[in-house]
């Protein structure tokens, strides 16, 4: 595990999880402080199946994703009809409960000591591939009817409901997608480090994902990916100021929210037509006639 390969893996995993947060928070406007717990569910279920039952890599990862989807459904069904604050609270409670559960069931999960001996299978290229795939998935979703429903209910839930958007169903779907992506990242994580412990999945990690999202711009996938790359890679190179890392983060976010609430990138998206648009802008600035 060289420095750059592990940096690539951790950044890629952050991108995958943050894409889930983009769907949930950026598009549907819901907050989860328990996303890291779904990552934990994915990591533990996949790891345990691989260790105890000798399940292969692919089925184990799939099982991890399915388990986090099931856990997501358990939280979503009772809570999603309520105010958004309650949802944030319930996910937070879920996160803490999962951590307590992992710490307490020492016989199965190894408790606070952590789970050892997950086979090392994940390679950096796999994570990069998975990250690209998840960005593609979320981009497709954003452009689909589903994505427009989410953005409608984020802006005004009552109006969206009146226009025929099944808001409850759509919110559950957004949450499940984000849980699935977090579980996926978790399963890949376990197969890379071969060791997981409950302290890795505290609510701080969930909050960090939300910070990344807000820094990049909650309406822009491009911005979110850029800020995920920047904010997860930067601290690794700033080890000497490790202590000030989090306050620095917080300062950036507070400044962003107060001074530039749409995030660094606003609504802007990178697309195939971007080079053409840039060119057009240059021409306009030079006063050249439009063809």
């Amino acid at each position, binding site marked *: 595990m060289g420095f750059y390969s592990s940096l690539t893996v951790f950044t890629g995993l952050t991108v995958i999880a943050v894409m889930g947060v983009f769907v949930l928070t950026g598009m549907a*406007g819901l*907050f989860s402080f328990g996303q890291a717990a779904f990552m934990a569910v994915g990591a533990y279920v996949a790891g345990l199946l691989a260790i105890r039952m000798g399940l292969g890599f692919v089925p184990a990862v799939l099982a991890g994703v399915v388990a986090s989807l099931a856990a997501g459904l358990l*939280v979503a069904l*009772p*809570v999603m009809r*309520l*105010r*958004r*604050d*309650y949802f*944030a*609270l*319930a996910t*937070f*409670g*879920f996160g*803490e*409960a999962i*951590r*307590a*559960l992992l*710490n*307490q069931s020492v016989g199965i999960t190894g408790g606070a000591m952590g789970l050892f001996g997950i086979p090392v299978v994940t390679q950096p290229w796999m994570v990069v591939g998975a990250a690209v795939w998840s960005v593609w998935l979320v981009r497709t979703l954003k452009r689909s009817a589903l994505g427009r429903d989410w953005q409608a209910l984020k802006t*005004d*839930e*009552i109006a969206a409901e009146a226009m025929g958007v099944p808001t409850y169903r759509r919110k559950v779907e957004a949450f499940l997608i984000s849980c699935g992506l977090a579980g996926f990242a978790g399963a890949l994580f376990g197969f890379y480090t071969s060791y997981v412990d409950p302290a890795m999945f505290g609510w*701080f990690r969930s*909050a960090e994902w*939300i*910070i990344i999202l*807000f820094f990049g711009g909650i309406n822009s996938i491009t911005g979110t990916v850029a800020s995920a790359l920047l904010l997860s890679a930067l601290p690794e190179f700033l080890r000497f100021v490790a*202590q*000030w890392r*989090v*306050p620095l983060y*917080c*300062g950036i*976010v*507070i400044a962003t*929210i*107060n*001074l530039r*609430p749409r995030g660094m990138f606003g609504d802007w998206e990178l697309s195939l037509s971007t080079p053409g648009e840039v060119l057009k802008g240059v021409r306009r600035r030079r006063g050249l006639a439009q063809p």
Partner: protein
Amino acid sequence: MLVQQLINGLSLGAVYALIAVGFGMIFNVLKFSNFAHGGVITVTAYAGYYVAANLGWSFLPTLAVAILVGGLLAMLVELVGFRLIRRRGGSVIFYFVSSVTIGMLLENLMVIAGGPTFYAYPDMLAKASYPVLGASVSTVNLVMLAASTLALVTLTWVLYRTRTGVAIRAISADTVTAGLMGANVDTLIGVTFFVSGCLAGMTGMLLGMTQTLFPQLGRVVVKGFIAAVIGGLGSLGGAVIGGIFLGVVEVMLTATIGSGWAPVLLFLILLSFLAVRPQGIAGVIAQEKA
């Protein structure tokens, strides 16, 4: 033994009630859940410790310092974190993220200031415990119970019997209209934050005395949030009931099934509460603004 657990539960519940009320005051006015409250609690606990341990002040002056620091810090938080958003009329989401971030910032500043180590407040009370109904109850718990009750009674008096209190209740009903009627909204919101910060200061110091002092102390704010939800968000009376209920249940659970499993069961209780009675005990449902 049961009496002792009950009193411990009551005094823990009284602190939860303090948090829930401080939390609920902001919720009433700005309609968002202010998680920066936890950060303020942490900072005041450290401030109290500094004054008590390094300068050797006694209990009451220390408490006054903690309360004052809390109030001023909360006003600063409002100025830095929320005022611009409010001026712009930004959505609730921004308040929420801003408050969480500030909570995190304050917590981490305390990590830098005091290190991740644990501290213990010096003994400031003359007697460690008192016998109550045949059970021995620690003085800190009794002080906690008394101080919280006093604070809540005072707060109720201020909110319902003074001019400022009436104005605060008016802006919590409708900020814009109250402003048109001549209420100075900026000042009143500042006052609300100050009062809520004073409660946080009290909470911080009392928690620091009963538990040990560490940077994550403020995360207890979540318990206050849960208490506020159980009681009914936006109702101060409900917040008190919810806090006391939560405190008693938590102490009882910890005594019977251990502190490891208690969070799991508390989560299940919360979840079933949200499923069965989302409007909380007080039954005032907080409407989402259309």
